């Protein structure tokens, strides 16, 4: 620790602290953008104008929203379980943010920084069981909803929480099955290996695993509680579901966590099925390494954005499922299809 | 990660196991009793992993997996039973369900 540079190096590079902070903040910013994006897309789909008053084309609308949320009165209803009520939005936000930790958004590159030759990994944590980590953390997303629903001490919230727990458990299964197929093809649980495994366009898992892709995609909708699977917060039935009793920044936290979930899910779809940060044929161009890296990160962003767009597109296009339909789809279609996919993939891996 | 003595984990396991026992004995709610049993199982898991590390033997990990499987199966069946009992008796308190003592 002889110099500030060394200290900085230690903090930034060795612990990954800076990288983590950067990623989290980036995520929050992206969430902000997404709120606007959603409103714009919905307006576009519904042939409306959407927000256009704050700033040019309304691009400052998220900031205005933020200010509004912060300045609103933070109402804590008297009948709620205070501790759970307050902790629920945080519990909800936490898994959405930490999941992103293992998603690789670019290849690694070695640069000289402060006289240190460092390898920069465009990924917060490159753990060798990354995909399992995702499955594990993703399953925690339900706690925010359950705790919020129960802590609100309100029957609508409670039903929302109940529905979400059932829904989460149900759709984790096909999701896991789809992931298993991918893992079988790549032979590794490390996300980076999964990405590099899809080096050419045809090697993208969307082509090798079309069924798995559909299953994963549908399950991702359910896991993020997006339409057509947003039963936990179905307005017509449950008022607002688990966040009925929330207001102000706590409500906002739920919103942020929902959008964070979308981002994480989209990036996962991109990583697992669309080749992640890979651009097929990029290596042939022999670009400078920094340019190559930036292009790859850009490719990742583009892919993820596209998936996010599909999320929104679907939301404003499809009606909501009924609860029994949701369960039937989950247990009677998705799970058997997922099992079939696993068996087929295993056969292919074993015999070809 | 060389600074933690193995027996710390064992003692932590012992404490958790004891807590589980206390829960099983004192609680009336069958579901909570169930959770206490899970606590005990996890205490055992911790012990297994500690010994596995100490002996540098993978069998501890295998055992932990088996325990998890058993725990999952147990929870599935156990909760189904509790739900069935609730549907029949409208209670999950074990002191209301003591038909053997009639």
């Amino acid at each position, binding site marked *: 620790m002889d110099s500030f540079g060394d200290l900085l190096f230690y903090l930034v590079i060795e612990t990954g602290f800076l990288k983590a902070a950067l990623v989290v903040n980036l995520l929050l910013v992206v969430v902000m953008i997404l709120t606007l994006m959603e409103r714009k897309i919905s307006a576009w789909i519904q042939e409306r104008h959407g927000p256009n008053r704050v700033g040019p084309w309304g691009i400052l609308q998220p900031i205005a929203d933020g200010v509004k949320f912060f300045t609103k009165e933070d109402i804590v209803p008297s009948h709620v379980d205070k501790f759970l009520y307050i902790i629920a939005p945080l519990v909800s936000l936490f898994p959405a943010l930490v999941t992103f930790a293992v998603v690789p958004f670019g290849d690694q590159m070695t640069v000289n920084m402060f006289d240190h030759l460092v390898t920069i990994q465009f990924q917060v944590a490159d753990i060798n069981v990354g995909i399992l980590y995702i499955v594990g953390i993703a399953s925690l997303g339900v706690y925010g909803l359950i705790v919020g629903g129960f802590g609100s001490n309100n029957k609508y919230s409670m039903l929302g929480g109940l529905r979400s727990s059932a829904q989460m458990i149900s759709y984790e299964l096909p999701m896991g099955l789809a992931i298993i197929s991918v893992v079988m093809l790549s032979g590794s649980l490390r996300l980076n290996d999964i990405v590099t495994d899809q080096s050419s366009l045809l090697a993208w898992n969307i082509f090798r695993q079309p069924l798995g892709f559909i299953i994963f995609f549908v399950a991702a909708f359910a896991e993020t509680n997006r339409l057509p699977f947003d039963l936990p917060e179905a307005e017509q039935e449950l008022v607002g579901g688990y966040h009925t009793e929330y207001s102000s920044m706590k409500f906002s936290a739920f919103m942020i966590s929902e959008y964070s979930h979308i981002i994480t899910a989209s990036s996962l779809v991109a990583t697992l099925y669309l080749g992640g940060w890979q651009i097929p044929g990029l290596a042939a161009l022999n670009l400078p390494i920094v340019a190559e890296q930036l292009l790859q990160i850009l490719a990742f962003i583009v892919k993820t954005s596209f998936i996010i767009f599909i999320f929104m597109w679907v939301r404003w296009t499809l009606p909501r499922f009924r609860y029994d339909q949701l369960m039937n789809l989950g247990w009677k279609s998705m799970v058997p299809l997922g099992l079939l996919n696993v068996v087929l993939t295993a056969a292919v891996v074993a015999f070809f | 990660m060389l600074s933690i003595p193995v027996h710390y984990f064992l003692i932590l396991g012992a404490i958790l196991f004891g807590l589980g026992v206390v829960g*099983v*004995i004192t609680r009336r709610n069958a579901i909570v*009793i169930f959770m206490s049993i899970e606590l005990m199982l996890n205490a055992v898991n911790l012990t297994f992993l500690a010994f596995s590390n100490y002996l540098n033997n993978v069998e501890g990990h295998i055992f932990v997996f088996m325990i998890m499987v058993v725990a999952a199966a147990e929870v599935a069946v156990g909760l189904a039973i509790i739900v069935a009992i609730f549907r029949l008796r409208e209670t999950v308190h*074990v002191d209301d369900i*003591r*038909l*053997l*003592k009639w």
Partner: protein
Amino acid sequence: MEDFIWLIPLMPLLGAIINGLFGHVLKGKAGLIASIAVLISFLYSVKAFLMVLDGVTFDGDLFTWIAAGSFQANFGLRIDQLSSVMMLVVSGVGFLIHVYANGYMHGDRSVGRFFAYMNLFVFSMLMLVMGNNLLLLYLGWEGVGLCSYLLIGYFYDKPSAAKAGLKAFLVNRVGDFGFAIGIFIIFTTIGTITYSGIFENVERLVSAGVVTTASLLLFMGACGKSAQFPLYIWLPDAMEGPTPVSALIHAATMVTAGVYMVARFSFLFSYSETAMLVIVIIGTFTALFAATMALVNNDIKRVLAYSTISQLGYMFIGVGVGAYAAGVFHLMTHAFFKALLFLGAGAVMHSLADETNIQKMGALYGKIKITALTFIMAWLAISGIPPFSGFFSKDEILANAYAYHPLVWFFGAVGAFITAFYMSRLVFLTFFGESRVDPEVEKHIHESPRVMTIPLMVLAFLAVVGGLVGIPQFVADLWGGSNHFHHFLEPVFAAANERLHLAHLSHALEYGLMLASVLIALGGIYLAYLMYIKKAIDPDALAAKYKGAYTTLYNKYYVDEGIDAGLLNPIVVMSRWLWHFVDERIIDGLVNVSAKIVMLISLLVRRVQTGYVQHYASVMVIGVILVLGYYLFS
């Protein structure tokens, strides 16, 4: 011979099974089936007999019956001179009685059951005489005992019949107990139970010093089955059964099983003079003793029953003194005339609406002629009037008895006199004199149907001429003939005869004894004539004069009462004591106390079962702590 002899016992068994299973459907046909089954057996028996006559005998195993460790009992049959004679008697007389029973039992409500028992009896009896080993003998022995029990108690709704059946069974058990032990002794000593095996190894019994014991034990069984003193008490009571049963089982066949057994084991008994002596003493005593009881009895069937016991005594005298052929000869002739007597008695009862008291009969001769005539022939035969069959056989026994010891002859002769007297009394009171029949009954007196009289006639023929096959040698010498029966049975008793060396009497003495027999018989008949026809001597006055003797005889020497008082009552008293004190107080008490203790402990222990899962769990944890503690600190 092997190809058909197994059919002989099988046919009655089949008949028994058919009648037993479908008797209630067959009803009247049951008797037909049973009779045909026995007839087939009889015909095959005749065939077997003819082959034996030609000198062909058979002794071999048909199949393995029981195999347990080193012990093996085969289903083996032995057809020799002795068993072929027995087979003829059993199936022949049996067939006639079956035919007779068709008429006698007509209209009974469970004929099927009756004929099933009868067939089963014939099967068992045939097994008894045909088997080539002790186990089959025992099987037949117990089988006939069972059938006897079942048939005595055939009218099971009559308490006296049920009681009589039980009595027969229990008394027989006493004898069978000894018999079984005798078999065990023979088996443990020799290791085989086949006749041929025992015959070859009989020396080992002698050297082991158990020959007398074994013989006496076997004779104990014979005593029970053949109603010898003191195990005779069941036979008079057995008259509760239907009359054909009395004829078949308690006169002609089953009761002679003992005689057959002793004859069969002649080679064994000949080794033990003691046993022979015991047989002679018991036989003599029974012959005389039973005859005296017959003197005063008024029940037609009971008189015949005592007569049977007495005649069995004569047979035992015969086999006891070593005149086996004579014993078996008497067995055969007795089967003829005693079966005839019983059937005749049955016919009389049939005519008189089941009246059995001879004091309420009389002057029946004119009304039921066939019955009366055949009955008279049997009477002459049993009394020993030449040339009827009984004369030859009884005379032969008495002659041999004289050779053994004159005293035996003397008692036998007295018995013969009494026999002639009481049989004459029976006949005179029944068929002659003035009628004492109930006027109401008298109107309905009728001769029995053909199906009953024809067997009577056949048996009468046999009773008359049956004796001619065994004309004594010294008589046959007159025209150069021989005693066919003796010669025929010679091979069976050769071994025993060789050892015993029967004393030969001079011809003069033999003629003298024969004459004495005839005179004795005639004397007995004359005395009865004086008393019951001429009324020269008033029997009632005689009874009043010797009141003590009369009542003693009338009450059968108080034997039943004596057994009740001396044997049964102590047992009953002791049983009551065991029941009320040992069983109820001590054994039940112990059980109750243990139950009480369990209950007391339970009162405490059941508090442990609270129904609270947690309590159980905590006990479990305590257990864990204890086990851990033991493991840690020991």
